[in-house]
């Protein structure tokens, strides 16, 4: 039997040390050249607008630059100063809190809205556009709208609450209220993107899977929990990373709405870096804060990526 099988096996090609001929080498070189020719524009732009500024930011963070004239090398002095700077730690805490609160809530709301839009709603395209609109318009416009809506003296929210006999929060001078107003505007502006991304991903799920689960007796919730949600894991991973990075880059909305106040209640690392770099003229210190923000995002993304990959491998 085994001999019979062996006799039916096609003969293996003779293993001889064949060196690639000149034509194969030339083809490899052509492929290599074509690849890099295609990559070059992207690499040039990346180098000019990403890598070079990043290296410069690190360099400036090691100086006492004021933004004018010459600067002296001060080593890690700016980083050491951060350790004893209470405003830095408060800004770091606020940034972390904003990420912890806003990212899961945007993902939950975005996923829920996407589920509703997928199944039931006519004119989905219109609603998709409506939800994405706040994300597309300028952050300054969003912030200006928020500033008027939540103005504690003449804003529509407090006027309405006052008219109903309810207490009107101090959106500008109360720390918690100011943070809530910023969160609400960011939530409104960012969730639309999550909706659109989840909607696209949901439409890519094979309907046979959901139908099979339904035939097996899975309830609507079970189909979402045990079929759709696991299949959306890559999308959720992408959205999480994107939203965390966005939280660490929020500037315009806070700058216009609260300026980091009151009493530092809405100060986050990016607004603090700007204040130090441009208003206080401590460019070296501001750059050091920027470098720390970059490292935090980098490490957080790598960690999250590893966790995600491990989870996929276990599956």
């Amino acid at each position, binding site marked *: 039997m085994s001999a019979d099988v062996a006799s039916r096996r096609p003969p293996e090609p003779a293993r001889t040390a064949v060196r690639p001929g000149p034509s194969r080498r030339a083809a490899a070189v052509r492929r290599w050249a074509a690849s890099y*020719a*295609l990559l*070059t*524009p992207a690499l*040039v*732009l990346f180098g*000019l*607008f990403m890598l070079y500024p990043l290296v410069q930011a690190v360099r400036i963070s090691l100086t*006492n630059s*004021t*933004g*004018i*004239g*010459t600067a002296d090398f001060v080593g890690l002095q700016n980083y050491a*100063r951060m350790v004893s700077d209470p*405003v830095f730690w408060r800004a770091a805490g606020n940034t972390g809190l904003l990420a912890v609160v806003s990212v899961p809530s945007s993902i939950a709301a975005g996923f829920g809205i996407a589920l509703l839009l997928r199944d039931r709603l006519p004119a989905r395209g219109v609603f998709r556009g409506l939800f994405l609109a706040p994300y597309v318009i300028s952050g300054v416009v969003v912030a200006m709208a928020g500033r008027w809506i939540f*103005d*504690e*003296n*003449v804003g529509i929210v*407090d006027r309405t609450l*006052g008219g109903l006999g309810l207490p*009107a929060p*101090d959106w*500008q*001078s*109360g720390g918690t209220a100011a943070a809530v107003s910023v969160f609400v505007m960011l939530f409104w502006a960012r969730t639309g993107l999550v909706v659109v991304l989840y909607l696209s991903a949901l439409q890519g799920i094979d309907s046979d899977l959901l139908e099979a689960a339904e035939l097996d007796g899975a309830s609507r919730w079970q189909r979402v929990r045990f079929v759709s949600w696991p299949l959306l894991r890559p999308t959720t991973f992408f959205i999480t990373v994107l939203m965390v990075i966005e939280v660490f880059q929020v500037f315009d909305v806070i700058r216009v709405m*609260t*300026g*980091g*106040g*009151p*009493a*530092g209640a809405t100060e986050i690392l990016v607004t603090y870096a700007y*204040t*130090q770099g*441009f*208003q*206080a*003229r*401590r460019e070296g*210190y501001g750059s050091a804060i920027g470098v720390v923000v970059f490292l935090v995002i980098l490490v957080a993304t790598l960690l999250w990526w590893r966790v995600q990959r491990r989870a996929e491998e276990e599956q």
Partner: protein
Amino acid sequence: MTRRPQPRPSRRSLLTAGAGTAGAAGLSACSGFSTDGGGGGSSTGGGPGTLTMITWAGDAELTAFQALADGFAAQGGPTVELQVVPYSEVLTAVDTGLRTDTPPDLFRVSYTDVAAYRTQGVLANLTDTADLEPAFLPAFWSAVTDDDGTFGIPHHTDTSMVLVNTAAVASAGLGALPTTLDAAWTWEQFADAARRVQPSRADTYAFAVNWQNAGAYRWLNFVDQAGGRLLTQDLSAVSADDPGMLKALTYTRDFFRQGLVPQASSSRGQPASDLFVNQTVAMVFAGDFLLEEIDGAGFDYQATFLPRDVNASADLGGNALVAVEASPNRDAALDFLAYCAGAQQMGDFCAAATVLPTRTDVDPASLDYAVRPDLMPLFVEQATTIREQLVQQVVVPDFSAVNAQLADQLDGIFLGSGDDAAALADLVAGVQSVLTS
């Protein structure tokens, strides 16, 4: 009628297009931040025979600056090209030019920022000032002068007064407002008047002070009025345990504790003038340069002097014009400064822009102010209380950092609770931390 199918782009044509796009992007990147195509030289200017001046300006100021440029050209000087940028971006625009070796020839700068540029050797020295110096009020001349020379001209000034909504104070029965410096309200009288102003709605307040953000240094008016100092006499450190500073802190903190001012008008809050324009407050501390904006609000208002305590004191507002040392057109730029410092030119500018002259021989009463000419003599009188002791403290090289620290610290103090002495200790420590760095 059928449409002919478009040929698909080949890989080669895509590569060519990509290379072209990248080339264009690279070339545009190489052009840096220059706002005109002139380039090529070491100035942002439009070429030889043209001076470039970076400034911020409202409509009236722009017209006034353009009139200066036209007058200079009419006298045979080079063309002055105005680059108008938003106030918040002006220093960034100047710094970018300096960094890329394309500095402007001239720029407009607040007195509190002059020293930061002077100490870095950015500003050209006006060598021949023997004729100019006696013509200027000493407080303003000292704002642009140190032991090494004079690094700009004090072009104009503005200062704060208390603007009062006429209807609101009439209902409070305050009577006639003080119209001379000697009769200015004392701190106690001002606080009493504020308490008597009856808010027209539950969400209105007696007044707001203009110490928000970059204006945080105006809190030092109160310190100086109380006879205190933020910085020591040699300007090298913060005055610890200064009784005048503690008195000012308690007095101004009471504004918030007693609900006389909106909580949102703290030092990181909303601009005080906005609160006056939308009638959230009945009185506001405001500079004369805001009269044009406030005048459009559609209600009557008057002005009276800043309250006084041990001293009468007002903030150093206004701006200097400076020339850049590294400019290839340095000498022509200095000529333009000398032209702008002329009595006639300064008077015309001030009348058009609703600001005050810094020359002693320009009589503000003779100027034809376009907005509230009746109030300008009061501002002129108030400006005489800009004290050199205070000026010296707000023109130190580190003042940008000091001012930012003041805004942060005062915001926490005004909106927070706790002991005044402890709050002052925090403020002192905060300001000291940026002075010593």
